[in-house]
């Protein structure tokens, strides 16, 4: 057994770790660095629960070796909020009840953030296709899509596009 020494940046912090050659980035995050926000739902890239970005590119951390992270910049769900201030997507997911069990939520938030960085004004269809690799079994996706669209509108500086919604939230 010869472990590999890797230097990387995770959520903006310089990070070093040792890993086995066959360890995935997800193994490293969860088991070596204690960052358990990314989940292993399938281990084959089919569910998206392990989504992270690597050099701003959305990937499944279960399909990348930990060793490949050398010199890269990784962003995970743990780095999404700014201190105690939630990212608008995080806030909108809670407000829209866009999660039930919550296991897919970290991956979907990371993927949705990547969507809005690439396309600040997505159509519903674009959002649905971008997120097609993130399985959610609880919600039927309805409230997730609404939360993403509402967060996008807010981030663009527009007023919430659903007047019923803002009214009922105020109650």
């Amino acid at each position, binding site marked *: 057994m010869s472990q590999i020494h890797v230097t990387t940046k995770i959520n903006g912090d310089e990070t070093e770790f040792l890993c086995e*050659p*066959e360890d995935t980035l997800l193994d490293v995050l969860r088991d070596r660095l204690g960052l358990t926000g990314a989940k292993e739902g399938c281990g084959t*890239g089919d569910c998206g629960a392990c989504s992270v970005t690597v050099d701003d590119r959305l990937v499944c951390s279960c399909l990348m070796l930990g060793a490949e992270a050398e010199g890269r910049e990784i962003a995970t769900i743990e780095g999404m909020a700014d201190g105690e201030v939630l990212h608008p997507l995080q806030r909108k997911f809670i407000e829209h009840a866009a999660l039930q069990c919550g296991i897919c939520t970290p991956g979907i938030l990371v993927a949705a953030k990547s969507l809005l960085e690439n396309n600040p004004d997505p159509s519903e269809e674009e959002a649905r296709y971008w997120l097609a690799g993130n399985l959610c079994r609880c919600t039927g996706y309805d409230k997730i899509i609404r939360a993403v669209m509402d967060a996008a509108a807010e981030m663009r500086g527009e007023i919430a596009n659903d007047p019923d919604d803002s009214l009922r939230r105020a109650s």
Partner: protein
Amino acid sequence: MRYEAPQSVDTAVALLAEAAGSAHVLAGGTDLLVRLRSGHIEPELVVDIKRIEGMRAIVEEDGGWRIGAGVPSAELGEHAGVRGAWPGVVEAAGLIGSTQIQGRATLAGNLCNASPAADSVPAMVAAGATARIAGPGGTRDVAVEDIPTGPGRTSLRPGEFVASIYLPAPAPRSGDAYLRFIPRTEMDIAVVGCGVALTLDEGGTCIAARVSLGAVAAKVLLVGKAAAALVGTAVDDTALAALSAACSEACSPIDDKRGTVAFRTHVAGVLAERAARIALSRAKG
């Protein structure tokens, strides 16, 4: 397992050639890691080629585009030049798995994984793409359709790997398209895939065509008879019906969890016609 990330082609070739046990090339890793984690392969060596200069580059060459073996399909989709020249190839690459998969999956990897159902391969075959192979004997260029030899098998020799894919300059009045059939709207392996590239003369007559089918045989097919059905025609309904029939006739699929022989044979013809219509409209600009 040993992990190496060489900085040069020569080092990579030497590592692959000298490996005692099984050695695998790691580009996007979206197939390799699945097989590794499931225990289907137990490599002695994995060679990550993405740190070799040029592997992450898309470069214009003789009016065409050379795409490094480490370029993920998401980057391909963002490249206006390639998208303009070969929209069908870019769309095919954009169908491989999810957004996350496209952040990693490469054309070269999709080719070398040698699945008969690989989405980008029929599109590349229709486009007349070539693969540049690096190996102990230097480099050689091979037509994409000659790389896979059967499910999971390629014509690559020991120590060789695909370093880049070359998409030639499209002729004037050309268009390409790729369509696949899957049960859902995303995330499935193609039950049938079809790539069509065609070129028209100034009068609108088809003067060249390449038609390719995926998931209907042990490897991706280049269907000459289907192309012949288009050449010399205005790609009218009669020609499209002949194309469709030729494609169905070329199929020798299997019954499996993704589709039946009858279904695949039928849908190959349906998709060929639909893809040809898109290619035609693109050729007409």
